[in-house]
């Protein structure tokens, strides 16, 4: 978690306002501050509350953008994709199956080098339904060249939205970015947030400059003629180059963010909580961090040396860095608020990727257990976390534990 309390002198300089707002409203405010040009909206819970806020901002004259209500998510994302290629800074978003309905647009935007910033209000895919959290929607684009990040507070949502524009619109990057916010917990709960000023944002965020990739009568180009087997590998290799340099760009931007806004996030890729002297750690993304941290504090009071790593960036996956951080622990428990049926060890997505990172980089390979938990918005409780940690400690002692366990499930 970023340090929310800013020294008084900084506060005076910075003149941030404190507000009681939801994660969705925080992102809406970030869009306003970022002077977004084109926004497309389509109703689906829980992300769409951000679009309701933006509607009010536009109507009140606080935000100057084209606000278009599309007739479906596919068109919604296609509109901003093309608007971005025509030079507009864009904002869009969806949840669950709405995001899936847009999948064709999501698939092609990385190759087209479209730096659109999108909010995903993570939601279970329905059927079978539920408005509650599941991470599978945003994770579905993980192979396609998107940048993916998860936040766990309204403050982080606002800050990361601004960071997202700066990162995505860096000419070395120029790929779409999905900012994931757990539905309901983050999108709809009102929390205290420091809202930066327009001047600060202007200092931090330069204008979007598409250069010679701009679609405009002064620049006669053909964008995306149909390639075939003679060209596709080279085109994909260009996206690969983006992922190679993305970690460096992200570090630069976070450092710049700290300079301008005074808020320090430290390591951009993951947050460490009570890991310094831990024997075992838990790892997860999103708002499950709150019950996990509460459980960790409780277990610490009881003398158990457990810590927590919260992953912020899923793409790029900071494999070597995470592996080096985790290799010293005796066992690791990953909490997956997602599923990946039929995967190796039947584990969720995060555990599967983490094991892969450990395999190639870590010097030691502690057991990595996976816990499927909280699907469809089911609560991840403190007792759930304690139960998971117990299993991790058993593994740390060398006792066999299942690779994947479903927690909080009625049998």
């Amino acid at each position, binding site marked *: 978690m970023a340090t929310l309390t800013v020294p008084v002198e900084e506060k005076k300089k910075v003149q941030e306002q404190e507000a009681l707002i939801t994660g969705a409203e925080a992102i809406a405010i970030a869009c306003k501050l970022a002077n977004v040009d084109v926004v497309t909206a389509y109703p689906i819970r829980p992300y769409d509350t951000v679009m309701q806020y933006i509607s009010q901002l536009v109507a009140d004259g606080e935000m100057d953008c084209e606000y278009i209500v599309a007739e479906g998510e596919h068109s919604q994302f296609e509109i901003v994709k093309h608007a971005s290629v025509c030079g507009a800074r864009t904002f869009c978003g969806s949840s669950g199956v709405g995001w899936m309905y847009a999948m064709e647009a999501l698939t092609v935007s990385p190759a087209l080098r479209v730096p659109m910033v999108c909010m995903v209000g993570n939601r279970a895919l329905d059927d079978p339904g539920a408005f509650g959290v599941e991470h599978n929607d945003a994770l579905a684009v993980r192979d396609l060249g998107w940048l993916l990040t998860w936040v766990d507070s309204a403050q982080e949502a606002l800050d990361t939205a601004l960071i997202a524009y700066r990162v995505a619109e860096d000419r070395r990057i120029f790929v779409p970015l999905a900012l994931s916010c757990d539905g309901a917990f983050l999108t709809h709960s009102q929390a205290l947030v420091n809202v930066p000023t327009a001047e600060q944002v202007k200092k931090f965020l330069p204008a979007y400059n598409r250069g010679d990739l701009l679609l405009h009568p002064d620049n006669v180009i*053909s964008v995306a003629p149909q390639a075939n087997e003679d060209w596709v590998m080279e085109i994909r290799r260009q996206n690969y180059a983006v992922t190679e340099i993305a970690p460096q760009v992200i570090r630069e931007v976070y450092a710049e963010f700290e300079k301008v806004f005074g808020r320090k996030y430290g390591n951009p890729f993951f947050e460490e909580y009570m890991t310094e002297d831990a024997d075992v750690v838990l790892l997860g993304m999103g708002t499950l961090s709150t019950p996990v941290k509460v459980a960790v504090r409780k277990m610490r009071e009881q003398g158990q040396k457990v810590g927590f790593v919260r992953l912020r960036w899923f793409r790029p996956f900071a494999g070597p860095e995470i592996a080096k951080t985790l290799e010293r622990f005796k066992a690791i428990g990953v909490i997956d608020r997602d599923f990946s049926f039929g995967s190796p060890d039947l584990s969720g997505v995060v555990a599967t990727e983490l094991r892969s990172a450990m395999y190639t980089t870590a010097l030691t390979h502690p057991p990595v257990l996976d816990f499927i938990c909280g699907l469809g918005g089911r609560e991840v409780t403190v007792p759930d976390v304690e139960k998971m940690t117990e299993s991790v400690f058993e593994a740390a002692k060398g006792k066999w534990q299942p690779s994947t366990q479903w927690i909080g499930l009625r049998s």
Partner: protein
Amino acid sequence: MGQLFAVEIIYRGVFQKTLAKNITRGIVLAARNEGKLGISFGRYGDSPERNGIPAKSFAIVANDQETLEAGMAQYEPKQVDVTVVLDDSLCKGAESWAWYGVQPVHHALKAGSTLIVVSLEGKTELLEKIHRRNEPYKLGIVNGAPSFSGMWVYKDDHTDVRMIGAIAKALPQLISFKSVEQFITEKLKNSVKVTSARNAFERFTATEIKPGEGNPEQLLHFTLPGWQKMRDGVSITGQPQGGPYADPVTGEVGGFRPGRNELYKKYTTRTMRPVVNFKTCTKCTLCGLNCPDASFDVTPEGTYDVNLESCCGCGVCEQVCPVKNCISMVNESEFDNNQSQWEAYRKDQDAYLKWLETTIEKAEPIEKRAHGFRYRSQYEKEIPEALEIAAKG
């Protein structure tokens, strides 16, 4: 490793698609009668085919499964034992996609192997078009006009079986005529076709072509850039605008020559080309306006000159031109270059007009030289003549 045979059929896309497939399938099925294994397939990048644009079909055959797999391990054979050309105008070279450049028709043919061309012309005329190469090869001609049909109605004029007969003669190690006959009898169940195939087999001869014999023209070549040189975002630069150009005689600048794509010359799509009478042209603009390929230059005089690098020979210009014999479509085989007709006309008007007159006289009527379906029962009317030629071999 056993012996691997590869046959390629170069044909006019869509018009000869079924024909080409019938030939390659026939080769595989005939070879089967000798206990060989084979596969028949089209070139990977040709699909979807487009009218007239050169395409390729292949048959590869082997004595055993492992050898066949060695042949299947490539998208297409890089070296073939027989090349069959189903329309002689393809002898000018084949360009299918925009970045392979133009390839000579024998590009994949092994040294000493046979090129078979369906043509009404002889070796001398064909060698004016077929490009020189460093290796020797054999040239055999199967007498006949190119057989064209379309997507839905097939013109069954026995060209397919005649070609299989000719291939059997050119490459007996691949298939014997006995196997061909067995295939036609059992699979096609048509004894008249056996006769056509036999006539083609018996009449087929091939003559040696020495290295260096043929058309000296240098063909368009293109090297593909790497990912670091390619622009980002799947983007490429667009086409620049054209402008007026100089009269070859007076040097005066006028008219309009559109900017054209330098990387894709569509002329290898043509089986016929328009010839223009600049004297009778009324400058009505309709040919240029209605050409989907923007293949007309407006001359400084205001007349319309065909750009023969880009023209694909559709014939719409002749149809829309309001002046009789002002634009006439003529068999592409009559010509051996893509020089501007208007420039020739400007340099010597009388000579050009004389040439034009004889060229148009020689031109076959539309029923003979155009390609494809024009009315129902058309093929039934045309097939008897084709069968007569088939009977003679």
